[in-house]
């Protein structure tokens, strides 16, 4: 009873708290990175170098007035931010943050659950989040949110295909659908899948940028055209939920990329005995390091690239990424068959 109920609950609380705190500081990091790129300081006033800025932001969002537009569909308007946030959070259930830790004389695996269909679970959960965005825009009963949500859902559906196809290539070479199994396959194969599947890795990363509505694919919230896109009418805590979901999704896609392509919790070159001194760093720290590297890449790209036009976005998705991903699957499968 204790093992099946209490331990997972403790882990869930731990992971959710960790994710929420990370999201708060990710926002600060993003503002700082943007500022450094643009030769500014960024937030400096609240706490030394602005380290308490996230707390001030949260406090502000809590006490802000919560406005529901007249003639908005009240139920759907309330449900939309929740529908966006919940999938973003439950995706963490299958992400392996590390191998094991020894605590109080017990060996604890650093994941909430290792189900046999972990990778498909991530794809399934991600496909549910779209509803929140569509419904948030529709229920606001306002022009800009509706346009933003239509753009966003079209974008998410298009890029989801390419991203899911990169999953197929990873499944082909690892022979496992479980997230832990994929990392183990990389340990046994002595190589990160990013080197075996560079094309899939690049396609996944571009798709992940588009799926999280990040620059240069941030058309759903293009400020110059749509005010703020699908969450224009939202304020206060409900807006905060959308914001939270966006950053939680960034962490999810980065963690998945780390697991699939960059060896998850493994240290660099796990087969080289000469580098054994690297084991001093615990496995979860390697995972965090890699994930934060990718998150930094997200921010770097946002500060560097201009936004795509809508037709360019669709062309990249349908005419470039999806055919390349299909070709990649065919080549990978053929090579696997030839090599036995």
């Amino acid at each position, binding site marked *: 009873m204790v093992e099946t109920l209490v331990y997972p609950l403790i882990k869930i609380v731990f992971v959710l708290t960790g994710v929420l705190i990370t999201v708060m500081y990710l926002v600060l990091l993003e503002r700082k990175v943007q500022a450094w790129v643009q030769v500014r300081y960024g937030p400096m006033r609240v706490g030394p170098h602005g380290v308490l800025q996230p707390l001030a932001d949260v406090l502000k969002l809590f006490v802000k007035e919560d406005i529901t537009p007249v003639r908005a569909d009240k139920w759907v308007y309330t449900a939309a931010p929740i529908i966006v946030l919940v999938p973003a959070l439950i995706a963490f259930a299958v992400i392996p943050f590390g191998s094991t830790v020894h605590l109080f004389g017990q060996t604890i695996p650093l994941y909430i659950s290792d189900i*046999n*269909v972990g990778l498909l679970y991530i794809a*399934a959960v991600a496909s*549910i989040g779209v*509803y929140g965005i569509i419904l948030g825009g529709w229920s606001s009963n306002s022009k800009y949110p509706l346009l933003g949500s239509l753009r966003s*859902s079209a974008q998410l559906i298009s890029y989801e295909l390419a991203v899911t196809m990169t999953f197929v290539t990873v499944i082909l070479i690892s022979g496992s659908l479980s997230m832990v199994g994929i990392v183990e396959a990389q340990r046994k194969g002595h190589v990160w899948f990013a080197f075996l599947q560079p094309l899939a890795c690049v396609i996944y990363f571009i798709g992940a940028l588009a799926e999280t509505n990040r620059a240069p694919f941030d058309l759903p919230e293009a400020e110059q055209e749509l005010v703020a896109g699908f969450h224009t009418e939202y304020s206060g805590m409900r807006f905060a939920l959308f914001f939270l979901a966006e950053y939680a999704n960034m962490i999810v896609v980065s963690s998945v990329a780390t697991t699939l392509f960059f060896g998850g919790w493994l240290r660099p070159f796990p087969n080289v005995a000469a580098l054994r001194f690297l084991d001093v760093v615990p496995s979860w720290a390697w995972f965090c390091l890699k994930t934060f590297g990718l998150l930094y890449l997200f921010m770097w790209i946002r500060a560097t690239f201009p936004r795509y036009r809508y037709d360019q976005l669709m062309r990249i998705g349908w005419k470039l990424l999806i055919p390349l991903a299909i070709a990649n699957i065919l080549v990978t499968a053929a090579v696997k068959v030839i090599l036995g």
Partner: protein
Amino acid sequence: MSEAIAFYTLAALILGFAILVITARSTVHSVLFLVANFLFVAALYALLGAQFLAVIQVVVYAGGIVVLYLFVVMLVNLKRPPEVHKDPHRRSRLAFVMACVLLAEIGAIALWGYARPAMTATALATPMTASQNVEQVGWLLYTTYLVPFEVASMLLLVAMVGAIILARRDL
């Protein structure tokens, strides 16, 4: 015991949401209840140990097809009142006949199940563990059911080509 509680809770939720789908005034609410319904059906599959089927149910139905429903419902003007048919009871008569056929079918399946309880015993002779679920499904699809599987994929291809031809006038 806990399995039975979970089953009856899920079954009640599935039926409840199914009723809400057909009674909701707003079409968008209907579609949302349909999503909830599909999610609980997926949970039922998970309860039966069919993890793969559960996840595919969410990906294909809840996450894929119903999104398209939602698009259509949102973009088509639903404010227009429905046209009055010459025979307003035509649909309810048809519905009554369909309901009778379905009921007969369910009854037949139930009777079949009572008449041949040995079948479940043979099926359980080789218990399928949850960890092998995906392998088992894949193995069956590519050996025993290879022909239906490939025919289904051809059918989907034909549907896709047809949709493209319908959408593009200048071929």
